[in-house]
């Protein structure tokens, strides 16, 4: 669970079944276990109105556990980019009463939330639960490039190559933490790199 440092740093909760007829789950890797845990509290028939979109990751675990919940629709995707067109279409055709549940890494939760915000869902109306890696999606404030899966502090921008301090300052609009040059005065000054977001 992420600690609150500054106001923009997202806080995640624990998934809980919401009233409504349609439930859309988007999860990656360990996020599947958040859905499985929530299912223990769900009323009978809950998953009959549910769609689960899951990115299993490299080891391919948890697929069977999600299938066992017997959701009305179950869709596997190799990456967030690959599920994006489908997600946009689903939200574009959806009606009020659809509830959204996001579980897994911060990058997945943030990017799915970004699409859902554009579709008109208030961020406080979404159920979120962080599971698995603490890896961050980072925007370089200098070149504006996004670097995925940042686990170190500081981290190198994959676009312009600057060494960046990964801040807790988060943008919901960009779905990214802000990375600011850590050695702007003297580029030869290289602080030690730590594995800060395993």
């Amino acid at each position, binding site marked *: 669970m992420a600690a609150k440092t500054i106001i923009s740093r997202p806080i995640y909760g624990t998934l809980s079944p919401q009233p*409504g007829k*349609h439930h859309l789950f988007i999860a990656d890797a360990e996020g599947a276990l958040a859905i499985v845990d929530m299912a223990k509290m769900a009323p009978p028939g809950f998953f009959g109105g549910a769609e689960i979109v899951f990115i299993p990751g490299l080891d391919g675990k948890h697929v069977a556990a999600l299938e066992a919940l017997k959701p009305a629709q179950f869709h596997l995707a190799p990456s967030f980019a690959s599920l994006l067109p489908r997600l946009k279409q689903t939200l574009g055709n959806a009606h009020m009463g*659809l509830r959204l549940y996001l579980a897994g890494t911060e990058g997945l939760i943030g990017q799915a939330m970004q699409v859902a915000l554009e579709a*008109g869902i*208030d961020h*406080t*109306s979404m159920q979120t639960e962080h599971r698995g890696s603490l890896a961050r999606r980072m925007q370089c404030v200098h070149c504006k490039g996004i670097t995925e899966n940042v686990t170190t502090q500081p981290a190198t921008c994959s676009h312009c190559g600057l060494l960046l301090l990964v801040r807790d300052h988060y943008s919901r609009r960009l779905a990214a933490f802000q990375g600011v040059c850590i050695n702007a005065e003297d580029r030869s000054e290289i602080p030690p790199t730590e594995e800060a977001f395993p």
Partner: protein
Amino acid sequence: MSTGTTKLDVVVSDVVPVNELVTRFHFRRRDGELLPTFSGGAHVVVEMRDGDRTRLNPYSLMGSPLDTREYTISVRRDDVGRGGSLFMHRSVKPGLEMVISYPVNLFSLDLRAKKHLMLAGGIGITPFMAQTAQLAGEGGNFELHYTCRTASLATYADVLRERYDRRIRLYHDDRDERIDLDRLLSTQPLGTHLYVCGPAGMINWVRDRATALGWPSEAVHFEHFAAPQPGLPFDVTLAVSGKTIRVGEQQSLLEAIEAAGVDPPYLCRGGVCGQCETNVISYDGKFIHNDHWLSEEDHRSGCKIMPCVSRFEGRSLVLER
């Protein structure tokens, strides 16, 4: 002066009977300047000086927010109420100088919405008059469903139909026309916000169905000014100011506190805004809570009261005021 209750000196510029129960009042500034900007859903508190008695009642502004030369309110006559609406209908004439508060909005549009779905019941139509004018000026997407008792009491239905045509749906109780609420709520595009203003029963019904059908509370907006209910007189000790006061049968607790020369904060005077929330130091008796502000837990605890609409029956009540 209480928070957010800066006053405006106005003159009544017109009084227009709308139907057998509703009359519209127009106010302009006495100094001829423009009135403050407001947004759709805002209300003002009108001071009614009726002999030695002053009533302060909230009314939604119903004119277009694009025109601040005048404010307009519509008042439904309530023959069994505490007399505020009767005073407006009988004693307020063009040319009368009155004092109103700055506008305050506790029922504003969420302009991030993809669509605005509005449900009005009876005189609850008034905030939507301003909101629809605001949205129409911005090309906003809205739909208004308006329930009234009879066609002759469908206040402003003709104006709304003329302005917005098929975006306005009317339901007449005397023709047994009813909103198919579940269907309406289940067929709205994602990103719709719901607004409801009308009698308490209607608001509760709409909120309950919206929750059951999966509408998040962030997308459901409602406004219901509870008029203070009359009741048995009771005595109250104000511990901070060291006064003991009696709340009359037709008086609200807030009015009695003000009459004793104590000036607590207030905004809506209808149990919704939370400004006048008051701590209870001790009590022996039972509370009659009528507000929409405190949680059920607060109501049960006996630690807090909203003096604008709530009352007390019993031996003693001591407030931190």
